[in-house]
């Protein structure tokens, strides 16, 4: 069985973890309602996609599977 030979300081572990970073999601503006939205997704605010298409998404729920 592998066993640690030396004590591992708090700083050593913390220094390694300085590279764990969160990236901010890439947010774009909806071309219809100008609210922030995620790219390549139907706008959650107005249900539009690519400027024109109306998706009666959240409100009039399409059949689930």
């Amino acid at each position, binding site marked *: 069985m592998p066993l640690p030979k030396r004590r591992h300081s708090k700083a050593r572990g913390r220094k390694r973890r300085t590279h764990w970073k969160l990236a901010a999601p890439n947010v774009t503006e909806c071309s219809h*309602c100008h609210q922030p939205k*995620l790219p*390549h*997704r*139907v706008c*959650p*605010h*107005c249900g539009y*996609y*690519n400027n*024109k*298409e*109306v*998706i*009666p*998404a959240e*409100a*009039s*729920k*399409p*059949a*689930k*599977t």
Partner: protein
Amino acid sequence: MRHGDKVKKLSRIKSHREAMLANMVISLLTHRMIKTTTSKAKALRPVADRLITFGKKGDLAAKREAYRVLRDHNLVKKLFEEIAPQFASRNGGYTRVLRLGTRLGDGASLSLVELLTAKPVVEKDKKGKKAKIKEEETKKPKEEKAEKTEVSGIIAPEKLAKKE
């Protein structure tokens, strides 16, 4: 290596997967659009395309092949007489998958799958818009009720303002 793995297994055994996709394609043909996870939505496309191709072929053998999946004579009739003719000018790719965002409970990516029929999108501007507006108006009362009961106050007023 994932060479040659064409079938998305969706964490299911074959019989379970095929039953699920059959159920989904029945819903899709019945309702024209369905909401599901992105993985299932993408797995559904070839199943739907295959059935619509049977519909365009239109002979008895094709009807029986379609019935094997749909298990509903009325739906086979609808596929062959109403849905398939609308795809006469299109060779494959009869569906569209639009990503909606993530589900609250488990963070799964959700999508909308729709048949590229009826309800003209993009092309035929004026007629399409009128048709859409009419449909929206008919749906509105339901939407408002749902929103009021669920979220009341915060989101509802904005949405109402925008839709009108």
